[in-house]
């Protein structure tokens, strides 16, 4: 029998350094890998354990996210028996507010209402900034085997696999080799690039009763419902926390370079297979589309495409989203071109990220660097002289 879980996705995530890509969309709605958005990954994990509901907490209105999720049917979240996507928008986390008075009581009640209604065995807390493909069934098995009350997911990494000013944390693992977690500390405290660490992926599973207990405590102390606050509460209560090691593909999406690298990682077959073919199938909103057409003049080297494109030019080491038109003699290298963009003849793009619906005029040239790719905002026009008119 499947395990009944309630899932809470905290999508009030740090996206300052991803602007302009996150100007009008939450991090969770960030397009990735030709045809996905980041939310597809946690949702696909939930889908694989046949979870039927999810509660989302987002700041702002989240139009792009709703448009993508719709009824949640893609991930099996639309069941008329106990299912549904419960969205809570315009959430402001206390940790981000100067004035705690604006903080609403509803925030805790919404969590309580959702979890109480689902009657789950477990509650899962997730986010969308840790691009990965988590086997929740394995996590649940680990949680049961350890007779654990609270388990968190980590990945072993070297410090230099994460950005210097990362806002994330490393777990303090017990030295007794018993998978026990004793706390966490900020990555910025680790200076040596070669140092190994246990990246706290900020994903947690806990029993319903423990969740409701912590929720009550969090409300009293006016704490945000986050994995880290819950780790603190567990440590305070002197209860054990177990760390579950994730060994699949992971990229922490924190800024433009890490977002760019995550996409480029997919052009490496090992990474691509690890993310898409070694764990859960990754499900995304189905779109009606025609196959992509490659013309007589197309030259393609190591590139990925979604359906519905027409390609007559040269595309190398790049990812091309849906409905992109690449004219002949246009050249795209080491770039990410999002949905609905149009590239005219003779244009040259290298180390560039085009957000949706960007129009590149004849002969326009734009070249960033691998470390600092140029990002062009949604609906912009790039003129032949290289001038960019923002959309």
């Amino acid at each position, binding site marked *: 029998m499947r395990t009944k879980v309630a899932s809470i996705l905290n999508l009030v995530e740090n996206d300052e350094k991803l602007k302009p890509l996150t100007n009008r969309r939450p991090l969770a709605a960030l397009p990735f890998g030709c045809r996905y958005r980041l939310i597809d990954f946690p949702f696909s994990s939930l889908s694989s354990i046949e979870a039927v509901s999810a509660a989302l907490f987002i700041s702002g209105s989240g139009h792009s996210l709703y448009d993508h999720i719709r009824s949640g049917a893609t991930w099996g979240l639309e069941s008329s028996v106990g299912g549904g996507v419960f969205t809570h928008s315009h959430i402001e986390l206390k940790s981000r507010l100067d004035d705690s008075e604006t903080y609403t009581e509803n925030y805790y009640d919404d969590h309580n209402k959702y979890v109480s209604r689902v009657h789950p065995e477990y509650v899962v807390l997730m986010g969308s900034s840790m691009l990965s493909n988590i086997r929740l069934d394995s996590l649940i098995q680990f949680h049961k085997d350890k007779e654990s009350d609270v388990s968190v997911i980590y990945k072993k990494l070297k410090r230099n696999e994460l950005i210097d000013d990362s806002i994330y944390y490393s777990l303090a693992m017990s030295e007794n080799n018993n998978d026990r977690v004793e706390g966490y500390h900020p990555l910025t405290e680790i200076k040596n690039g070669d140092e190994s660490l246990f990246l706290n992926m900020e994903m947690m599973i806990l029993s319903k009763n423990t969740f409701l207990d912590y929720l009550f405590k969090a409300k009293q102390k006016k704490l945000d419902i986050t994995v880290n606050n819950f780790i603190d509460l567990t440590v305070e209560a002197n209860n054990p926390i177990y760390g579950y090691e994730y060994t699949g593909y992971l990229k922490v999406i924190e800024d433009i370079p890490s977002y760019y690298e995550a996409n480029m990682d*997919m052009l490496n*077959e090992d990474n691509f297979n690890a993310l898409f073919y070694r764990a859960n199938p990754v499900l995304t909103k*189905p779109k009606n589309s025609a196959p992509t*057409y490659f013309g007589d003049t197309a030259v*393609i080297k190591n590139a*990925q*495409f*979604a359906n519905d494109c027409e390609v007559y030019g040269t595309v190398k080491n790049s990812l091309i989203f849906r409905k992109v038109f690449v004219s002949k003699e246009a050249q795209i290298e080491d770039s990410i071109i999002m949905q609905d963009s149009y590239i005219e003849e003779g244009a040259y793009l290298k180390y560039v990220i085009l957000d949706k619906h960007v129009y590149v005029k004849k002969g326009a040239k734009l070249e960033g660097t691998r470390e600092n790719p140029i990002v062009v905002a949604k609906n912009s026009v790039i003129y032949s002289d290289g001038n960019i008119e923002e959309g």
Partner: protein
Amino acid sequence: MKTETVAMILAGGQGSRLGKLTKQIAKPAVPFGGNYRIIDFALSNCANSGFNTIGVVTQYQPLILNNHVGDGSSWGLDRNNGKATILQPYSSMEGEKFFKGTAHAVYQNIDFIDDKNPDYVVILSGDHIYKMDYQKMLDYHKKQKATLTVGVMPVPWEDASRFGVMNTDKTDRIIEFQEKPENPKSNLASMGIYIFDWPTLKKYLVDNQAKNRQLTDFGHNVIPTYLRNNESIYAYSFEGYWKDVGTIESLWSANMEFLDPAHELNIRDRNWRVFSKNPNTTPQFLTSSAKVTNSMITDGCYIAGEINHSILSHNVKVGKNSVIKDSFIMPNVVIGENVTIEKAIIGESAHIHDGVEIIGTEDSIEVVGYDEEVGGYSDEN
């Protein structure tokens, strides 16, 4: 709420001339154009014409077809006031209701149509590749105050004897019907598309059944009966791309025509989209050794070889140094390394092992069946 029109898509035929491609699945479910199955064109025409109450009549090998159509949600047909319903033969007090012909299939589903109580019933075939606005034909039907309107297409006179042809008067009223005539009097071929006034058709079907004269087939029985009874039957002329992909060669050539970006079907037209059930799969991956020209590639493909003038459906894998030319590859096919495929149709989920050559000619297209394995080590030795 009243339903003005019910569309019945007849999708029960085997399509035996497609050989092994219709051994396990019905012809309307045969893959086409990389992302589609043949029936998608009729279903999308219905959706685009604003007809959303649709009966899909299936019979022969219906599993894949039924699964594909589902509740019609892929075509936006899962609304409160209409949806796609799969209609299959069933048994009742009167015995088993296997469909003996096109009109008989409708007779057997009178209950379904009556439940909707429509003014008009549109009869369509799930076998053809075309885009057509049935609403325009319905407007014409109403204007002519016809009890039956037949969709016709002018064909070259030398081909007319292969079709059922309609001989019309100056007002486009049909005065004579000839089934595959030696000496055709008209070049207007029936497309197998009919709009009937439902009360009239029902009366004919029921009355004749009561007299033990079954109206089995629309072409052979119903149209001649209507003509004898002086019903007003009009021809509605369709001009545009229309293809019956009833043979291996026509299925192949229709796919090759489909490849042309200037093709009349204009598959990328946002105002008349062809919908299908879209598989959830990964982006298409063209590696450093890939060479892809004049071809259509679909999501989920992994290509390390050379593809020229071909259609690859979703999730096709092509290994290094393999060359695919002038071919149609159906979904989930795995092609190894150093394979040569030319002028061929490769069936769904077939596996072509390293080094195999499959080379057809325009008059004799090579076909590999569904799930077939070609080459590799044989277990029998």
